[in-house]
């Protein structure tokens, strides 16, 4: 079968002074009609750049230096914008990662889909309305949503609307750039199913860009793995996933956490170190008719000494509110939270927190060493001793103590999360509450930070509350898991039991939605 879209030795140069000279280095692949081709890589690997280069949408400062982009055998690379406009949207559709920012908040959904027809066809208004209704039905949205505004839609619905727009003109090629990364796992599963279904029915060729090997396992026919702007390996999905040839692919696949929890560790004896009893929290807006959100409903949890309690849930389930209640950053409305059997207040050195976003949780104007020394200094530790402690902690979390005097922006995401970890540990807490500590990180860095956390837990005798949306991550580190939905704990139990024999229907739905659940990463060595 001939390729509908082919990249032939595409090379894009980065501006001088960047961390490498080429954004894309001799990238070649074919996209055949009716197949899903996955481009996989970590952040900065150039996978999104490849999509942008195909549509001639390279950011300013970047230049194509060599190579061709063949659409139906015609080279479209380097064409002026005017010549590319009939191609964009009509021949090549595109879906973006963030459906909120890709939709215009001031125009109705149906109007935005109709825009595709108005731009590219001479159809009459009535015909366009009929087409829009048909498209909404195709992406399984109720017809009434054509009159809705983007903010009235959920994330999944917005992404469906984006798919409807991208497929409106029946393009031969659909480029999907991380279309499910911002979505909850159950929504992601449904959107993936939709893309797969539409693509089969219409014979569209899909270029699917993702960082998640689970998603690849679910959707791809063929795969290309990118690293530093180069394709290091490409082939049939089955071959690449189960018999990876390139060392980089092998390392990436090895970093994907397995869904099988490790053998249970012996439970700590004695009373639990941290308890939450009947914790309730309601967020109230201001004004005459305030919006009331029930964030936590009667949550009761116990953390055993030396244990790791995972709290798993989708966005809006209240897990982050719970984390903040546990360290008393947020005052619970009712209920008791006790540490070692006693009530405590915010800033207690015995319980510390690690945040999700390593970019937002470090003050950009303080040196890494100061950030780590801050806690001990606040609690009356002398300058020299605080510095000695920071040096020791830097070693412990795998950072070079020479980096104490550098600013946060000089570190990578994984290194910053290590600084945040060192800061939390500087007060020698007994309990660490980690709120999605690895979800902003690439999969290989994620594996390193998880291993570090597990190692520190065992070495320092920490008890850990680990909050995550990712069941694979939870399986890797947690002894017990609590599943949250709408502010309630719907199921709690040992990780192994919960994964093998989920009791609550929602837990089962979550487990079924994990991307690539049918694929067992091969035990590559």
């Amino acid at each position: 079968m001939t390729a509908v879209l082919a990249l032939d030795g595409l090379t894009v140069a980065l501006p001088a002074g960047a961390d490498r000279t080429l954004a894309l280095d001799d990238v070649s692949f074919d996209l055949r009609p009716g197949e899903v081709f996955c481009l996989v890589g970590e952040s900065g690997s150039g996978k999104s750049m490849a999509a942008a280069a195909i549509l001639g949408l390279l950011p300013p400062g970047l230049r194509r230096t060599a190579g061709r982009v063949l659409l139906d055998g015609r080279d479209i690379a380097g064409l002026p914008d005017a010549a590319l406009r009939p191609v964009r949207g009509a021949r090549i559709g595109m879906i973006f990662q963030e459906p909120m920012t890709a939709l215009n908040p001031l125009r109705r959904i149906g109007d935005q889909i109709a825009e595709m027809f108005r731009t590219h066809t001479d159809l009459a208004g009535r015909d366009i309305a009929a087409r829009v209704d048909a498209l909404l039905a195709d992406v399984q949205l109720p017809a009434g949503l054509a009159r809705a505004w983007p903010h009235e839609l959920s994330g999944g619905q917005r992404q469906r609307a984006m798919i409807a727009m991208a497929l409106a003109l029946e393009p031969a090629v659909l480029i999907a750039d991380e279309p499910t990364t911002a979505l909850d796992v159950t929504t992601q599963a449904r959107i993936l199913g939709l893309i797969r279904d539409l693509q089969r029915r219409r014979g569209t060729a899909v270029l699917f860009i993702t960082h998640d090997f689970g998603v690849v396992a679910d959707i791809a026919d063929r795969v290309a793995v990118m690293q530093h702007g180069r394709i290091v390996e490409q082939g049939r999905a089955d071959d690449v996933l189960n018999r990876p040839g390139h060392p980089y692919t092998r390392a990436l696949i090895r970093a994907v956490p397995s869904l099988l929890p490790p053998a249970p560790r012996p439970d700590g004896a004695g009373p639990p170190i941290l308890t939450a009893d009947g914790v309730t929290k309601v967020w109230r807006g201001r004004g005459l008719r305030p919006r009331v959100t029930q964030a936590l409903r009667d949550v009761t949890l116990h953390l055993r000494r030396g244990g790791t309690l995972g709290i798993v849930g989708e966005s809006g389930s209240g897990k982050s509110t719970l984390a903040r209640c546990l360290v008393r950053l947020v005052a619970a409305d009712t209920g008791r939270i006790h540490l070692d059997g006693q009530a405590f207040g915010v800033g207690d050195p015995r319980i510390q927190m690690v945040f999700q976003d390593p970019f937002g949780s470090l003050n950009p104007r303080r040196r890494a060493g100061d950030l780590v020394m801050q806690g001990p200094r606040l609690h009356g530790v002398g300058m020299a001793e605080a510095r000695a402690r920071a040096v020791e902690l830097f070693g412990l979390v795998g950072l070079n103590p020479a980096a104490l005097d550098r600013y946060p922006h000089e570190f990578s995401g994984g290194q910053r999360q290590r600084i945040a970890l060192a800061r939390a540990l500087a007060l020698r807490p007994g309990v660490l509450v980690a709120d999605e500590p690895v979800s902003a990180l690439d999969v290989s860095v994620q594996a390193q930070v998880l291993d570090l956390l597990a190692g520190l837990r065992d070495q320092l005798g920490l008890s850990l509350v680990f909050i995550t949306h990712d069941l694979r991550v939870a399986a890797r580190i947690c002894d017990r898991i609590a599943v949250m939905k709408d502010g309630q704990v719907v199921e709690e139990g040992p990780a192994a039991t919960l994964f093998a024999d989920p009791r609550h229907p929602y837990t089962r739905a979550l487990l079924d939605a994990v991307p690539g659940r049918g694929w067992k990463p091969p035990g590559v060595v």
Partner: protein
Amino acid sequence: MAFLRRYAASPAAVIGLVLLAVVLAMAASADLLFPRNPLALAGRPLQWPLANPRFWLGTDTMGRDIAAQLFHGARISLMIAGLATAIALAVGVAIGAVAGFYGGLADDVLMRVTEAFQIVPGFLLLLVLVAVFGSTLTTVTIAIGIVSWPATARLTRAEFLSLRQRDFVAACRGLGMGDVRLILAEILPNALPPVVVYAGVVMAAAILSESALAFLNLSDPNVPSWGNLIGAGRSVLRTQWYVSAIPGLAILTTVLAVSLVGQGLNDALNPRLRRR
């Protein structure tokens, strides 16, 4: 160093800095070049510039040396502008920081007070204050500071509102840090860059306010400010226009310099904005 390089990358910012340096040099050298009282009678009134080698910028309606008044006036104008800006920043940042950090009732009360100041046109309020408290150098400076703080307060509040939500603030709270330290040591340094940039606008406006007061004969008549000189030239504006035009040019230059430096600071502090 990187900051200096980014600043120097903009020609307009460098020109602004040079102009500001010239005005500062004028202020610094006033006593050296014109040791006599600049408000004393120096010669025949209304001599045109360059007509008499002793008065190369001419003399005003009362026979005072315009060049001497210009140099000494640089001191007064810069001092009024600098102090008024300092007052406006101190009051504005303090009120904005408390309102933005605590929110709720404190925010409501402080912002209503701020709005009370904002609904009165600034210059009108300035006239009222000067009319009530008299027009000495001190009262004029304080009055200009008082009418200039509300915008700074709003800007600081907006910065605090977004910064207090950031995780690093929660992290510091989790370490046991108190509110005063959080505000002063953690949030304020991050909130300052836009405020510092805005200070340029406040300063330029302060110079203009003082000149406008002086033009209406409402500023301190006992100091050689640029505004006073313009006011003095008002009666001969059609025939001996240079009496008002020369200090006017000085005001224009200074305001331009301060604005360019402010803009340059803005670009250097927010390098991402500039690349558009």
